[in-house]
């Protein structure tokens, strides 16, 4: 059974999410890839405010395809998260609670997640056509010059994802594989 997750994502909600949970995410989330993350961290380093309030925020690592016809947004699946590893600890320290991406994270990111209480969701890489249907509204709020990599505010409804790494550092990539391999012994 899926757990419903609504943003803003509070620490209480995060503590309730366990690695391996299937979730449906609803509410406002923000998109950013490497280029936008770099700029966000530069602002943070200068002590300047970010284009959105990071407190209890969820960031989706995605560079969507352009909308076609009457679409709200084009295909919009996750990009590989490790490219954001250099930046995520800074944003987590500022209050970001959730990240949606795909693939491995660095020990530094996991340490920041445990310290501040944050969760890493995996969305299905390569399912951009399906995932874009969960996006009900999309607007660029900063860095328009980055094109697909611009910072967007999305309103999502029941976006399917999995808890890959929870705030205790449990990692589905490690446990899921181990459990599967044991099941076939």
């Amino acid at each position, binding site marked *: 059974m899926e757990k419903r997750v609504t943003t803003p994502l509070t620490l209480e909600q995060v503590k309730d999410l366990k690695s391996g949970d299937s979730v449906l995410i609803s509410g406002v989330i923000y998109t950013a890839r490497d280029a936008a993350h770099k700029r966000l961290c530069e602002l943070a380093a200068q002590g300047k405010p970010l284009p959105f309030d990071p407190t209890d925020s969820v960031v989706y690592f995605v*560079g969507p*395809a352009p909308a*076609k016809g009457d679409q709200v947004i084009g*295909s919009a699946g996750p990009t*590989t998260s*490790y490219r954001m590893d250099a930046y995520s600890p800074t944003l987590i320290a500022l209050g970001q609670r959730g990240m949606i991406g795909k693939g491995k994270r660095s020990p530094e990111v996991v340490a920041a997640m445990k310290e501040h209480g944050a969760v890493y969701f995996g969305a299905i*890489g390569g399912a*951009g056509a399906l*995932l874009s249907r969960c996006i009900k509204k999309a607007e660029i709020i900063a860095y328009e010059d980055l094109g697909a990599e611009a910072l967007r505010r999305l309103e999502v409804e029941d976006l399917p994802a999995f808890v890959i790494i929870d705030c205790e550092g449990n990692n589905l990539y490690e446990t899921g594989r181990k459990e*599967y391999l044991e099941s076939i012994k």
Partner: protein
Amino acid sequence: MREINAQDITAAVKRLCMEANSYLPGDIKERICKCYENEPWDLAKNILGIIKENYEIAEDKYVPICQDTGVACVFLEIGQDVHINGNLEEAIHQGVREGYIEGCLRKSVVRDPLDRVNTTDNTPAMIYYNIVPGDGLKLTVAPKGFGSENMSQIKMLKPSDGLEGVKAFILKAVEDAGPNPCPPIVVGVGIGGTFDKAAFLAKKALMRDTNVRNADPFYADLENEMLEKINALGIGPQGVGGKTTALAVNIEKMATHIAGLPVAVNINCHVTRHKSIEL
């Protein structure tokens, strides 16, 4: 001598860019369905079901299967008796430009690897020419996503590393990649040649229909063996564990130097796209 107009090449490339991004090849779809049926791990099966639903939506609505609509890899087999009226290379780039803009495909190319300014039309294409006998012209467009491209590896093995070294290196590349390249993956392997030829063979291997095995029975067996070994790793769809890590392993090989054993592993995701046309 047969004449082909550059404009016809532009039109063909444009169409192939758009279609390849929405219509997954039949062999890949079949393999996803088969793996879905045979997947014993619940979460893995769920994911394969969503992957299936996703390509059906893409096909039905004519939208990109994945938002990473790739860098356009364009393969040409040009008959040596063909003459192109106009600028061939510019005609290909123009086709990519028109296809990516009109098709609402994502523009994912930067003009320089270090200054990283987006070209805003997905050009230039990555072009691979092959001159063949006759007067035909075969065009293949393969949009290549970089989540999987980034997980590719190449190594100059020693001849003494032999077959076992090759097998170990293929498994290492898949293991290192883990959940990153959107498994289930398709693994293209190039063995032999030079440093660059091995890499090209690996990419070429990804263009082959996954229901066609290497014509050399030794390499056909190796493809089957490696698929089994990769799927025994248990990485599973999206890395959550499961039986389905790879959909296929395609290997291409060629002659090489007495001192060398180059091996390249080009990884592709479940969105292994390519479409061809003969002009």
